[in-house]
């Protein structure tokens, strides 16, 4: 894979050129500043400061109205040399501190993402290992396997049905007794009718005897007998009405009991049916749950890919760190060199720049060194 990054082409030099080392120092400062500003966060203000300082240094040295570069300072050292030897090491140290802070922050971020990725892997692995399958006939198998439990479920109902059957049988016996009662009621009405007849005959016999001594007594007995017969007939009728009512109630209860009668086999089949329905509903719910788990699994896998992409992008931190380290190191070396060679020439600058270029490890550095080329970044694996 190859990516290309366009790099801005700087304006050609015009007017009075600054000394080569100052030009280099200014360029380094601007470059480092831009780099830090790009990194952002705590490094951004330092980056802006460096960029501004570098730009100012460059502009100052280019302007003919500003003090010339060859001005000699205290102790015979050139002003520019003094500036470089004192300012550049400070920048160098600041860059090192910034690089360390960036490294530390990146390491913490990476560790966090690493932990997240680990947790995610664990989650998706757990979800992947959680699976339930229902083969054809699984419900029948389950019902067969759980027969004792299902029988236990029916036993209570069975007892209730037995009690109901006993009650129906008792009601049937009651019906028989009621029929007997009805017969007795009829007999009592019949007796009452006979008593009335006897009373009537008694009163006739009393009248026929006429004026006898026992006439008054016989008549009184006949009247009393008629009264008793009437009361007995009334009670018989009431008993018969009550018996009829009870017979109707008992008949209805017996009929209902017979209609709702459930055989044990019928009860077992009904329980089987309900158990199957419950199992099917349970499996459907489980299926929906598993589908949800599969979706979570997919989301987890997708998230893991995204975290991989984050790791890929985090590699910029290493490149920034390397570039800053190299620039900081070069700045220190440069400051020392300038201190040792106050009268540097154009060829010294050229030699410095060539050495710098040779020390680069990245295509970006080589390309930015000249500032006018495209960066060809090659990526991928090359097997030997």
């Amino acid at each position, binding site marked *: 894979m190859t990516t290309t990054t366009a790099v801005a082409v700087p304006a050609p030099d015009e007017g009075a050129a600054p000394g080569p080392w100052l030009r280099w120092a200014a360029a380094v400062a601007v470059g480092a500043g831009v780099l830090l500003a790009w990194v952002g966060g705590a490094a951004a203000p330092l980056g802006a400061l460096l960029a501004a300082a570098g730009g100012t240094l460059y502009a100052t040295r280019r302007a003919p109205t500003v003090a010339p570069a060859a001005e000699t300072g205290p102790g015979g050292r050139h002003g520019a040399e003094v500036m470089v030897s004192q300012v550049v090491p400070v920048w160098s140290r600041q860059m090192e501190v910034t690089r360390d802070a960036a490294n530390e922050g990146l390491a913490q971020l990476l560790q966090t993402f690493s932990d997240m990725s680990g947790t995610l892997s664990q989650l998706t692995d757990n979800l992947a290992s959680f699976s339930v399958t229902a083969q054809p006939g699984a419900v029948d198998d389950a019902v067969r396997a759980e027969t004792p439990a299902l029988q236990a479920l029916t036993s209570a109902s069975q007892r209730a049905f037995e009690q109901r059957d006993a009650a129906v049988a008792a009601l049937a016996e009651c019906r028989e007794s009621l029929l007997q009662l009805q017969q007795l009621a009829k007999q009592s009405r019949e007796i009452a009718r006979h008593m009335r007849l006897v009373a009537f005959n008694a009163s006739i016999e009393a009248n026929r005897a006429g004026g006898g001594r026992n006439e008054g007594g016989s008549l009184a007995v006949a009247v009393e007998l008629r009264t008793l017969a009437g009361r007995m007939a009334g009670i018989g009728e009431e008993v018969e009405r009550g018996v009829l009512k009870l017979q109707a109630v008992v008949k209805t209860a017996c009929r209902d009991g017979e209609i709702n009668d459930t055989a044990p086999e019928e009860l077992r089949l009904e329980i089987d049916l309900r158990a199957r329905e419950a199992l099917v509903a349970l499996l459907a719910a489980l299926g929906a749950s598993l589908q949800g788990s599969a979706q979570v699994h997919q989301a987890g896998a997708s998230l893991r890919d995204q975290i991989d992409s984050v790791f890929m992008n985090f590699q910029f*931190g290493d*490149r920034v760190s390397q570039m800053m380290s190299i620039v900081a190191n070069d700045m220190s070396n440069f400051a020392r060199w300038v201190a040792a060679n106050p009268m540097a020439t154009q060829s010294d600058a050229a030699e410095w720049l060539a050495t710098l270029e040779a020390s680069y*490890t*990245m295509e970006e550095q080589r390309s930015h060194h000249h500032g006018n080329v495209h960066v060809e970044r090659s*990526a*991928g694996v090359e*097997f*030997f």
Partner: protein
Amino acid sequence: MAKTVMIVDDSGSFRVVVKLALQKAGYETVEAVDGKDAVGKLDGRKLNLIVCDVNMPNMDGLTFLKHLKTTGSYKFTPVIMLTTESQEAKKAEGKAAGARAWITKPFQPSQLVDAVNKLCV
């Protein structure tokens, strides 16, 4: 038993990235912060492969590679150079020193894992 890969890189963040990619692929890892540290860890332990940066302090990757090839028990351990360095001269030097592959940073974790799977002994 899981195979072991040594990761040699002075960048802590890079070691984390590589470690995570390899551990996810089922490898165990050993880390070294530079060539010198890596030499210290060639202590007889079983290493199935080494992933090594090139530019490192104390001892760079190519020097470590050359040293490795003179170390009896590790001379046949395959080495993948994983580096920002893309100069052909450096690659040629790595190849001559016995590197089996050269991966230029930034890399895709899947590319690294594929290369490790291919070369791991």
